[in-house]
């Protein structure tokens, strides 16, 4: 599995997930499970490490379940998708066999993006706490 391909597939999943959420009436669960199903069916047939890439796509599909208050714009979803792809790539040996592991990576990526943004006042120059 290569990092570049993981990121590309993660970004594609993020883009499609965001678009489906914005342009259709599908529920968050429907969008995420559709993307996961497509990835699980297609990627193992295309790549030798397809199962690993499908994991990346599944994790990013969980990112796209974020509310529009958290991730409103497509660039925000894409940034978090990138974080998430990198996390899944480097976290392959963490929490092995534990259900919910991919969701944990997704949540970590979303929080890494949204928490600093919510508290950006703290990072501005001249602001004392």
């Amino acid at each position, binding site marked *: 599995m290569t990092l570049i391909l993981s990121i590309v597939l993660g970004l594609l999943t993020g883009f499609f997930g965001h678009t489906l959420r914005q342009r259709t009436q599908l529920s*968050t669960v429907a969008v995420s*499970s559709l993307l996961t199903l497509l990835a699980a069916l297609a990627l193992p047939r295309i790549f030798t490490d397809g199962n690993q890439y499908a994991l990346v796509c599944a994790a990013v599909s969980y990112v796209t379940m974020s509310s529009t208050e958290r991730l409103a714009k497509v660039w925000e979803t894409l940034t978090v998708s990138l974080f998430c792809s990198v996390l899944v790539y480097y976290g392959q040996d963490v929490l092995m066999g534990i*259900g*919910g592991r991919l969701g*944990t990576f997704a*949540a970590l990526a979303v929080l890494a993006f949204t928490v600093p943004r919510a508290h950006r006042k703290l990072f501005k120059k001249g602001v004392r706490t």
Partner: protein
Amino acid sequence: MCRHALILLPLVVATLELAGYLIGRTSSVVLLALLAFIIVLAPKGCRLGDWKKALRSALICLVGALASFLLANNLDLGPLMASAVVGLLGTVVLKEKDQLVVYLGTFIGMSSALRFPTLSLVVLAGLTGGILWEMLSETWNGVGGRLGTVAATAVLIVLLAFGGGLQ
């Protein structure tokens, strides 16, 4: 604090794993004791408002977990496809809030059969997941991956308490 302590459990375990510390039987007791201490110390945040609602969620979550686990392991669909199929079926037959609970259950069912050698552990984790879902309903709202984190918390609690740790 109590809610955050619960939902952060997977991240704590992941950090310990990254530090090269595998959690065995003794460590399970220590971790569970810590968790119990936090819940006893700050029980306000972890109160369950409505037990009937929690029981309903626990049962829906259990169905999702069992269906996903059996599809993944007995029909060899693999965890991803099993979770997606059960999640999609849920969107056809359930209301939106219940869809989330069944999807949470499918994440629990994605656990490896090596972690859950018997179905009773899956049942326990499924029920725990539903109860945690109600308990943590106000935590990390709108954060994608929250369902997975709650699922991982439920799985870890069951593994630490009954599954002999993570070694």
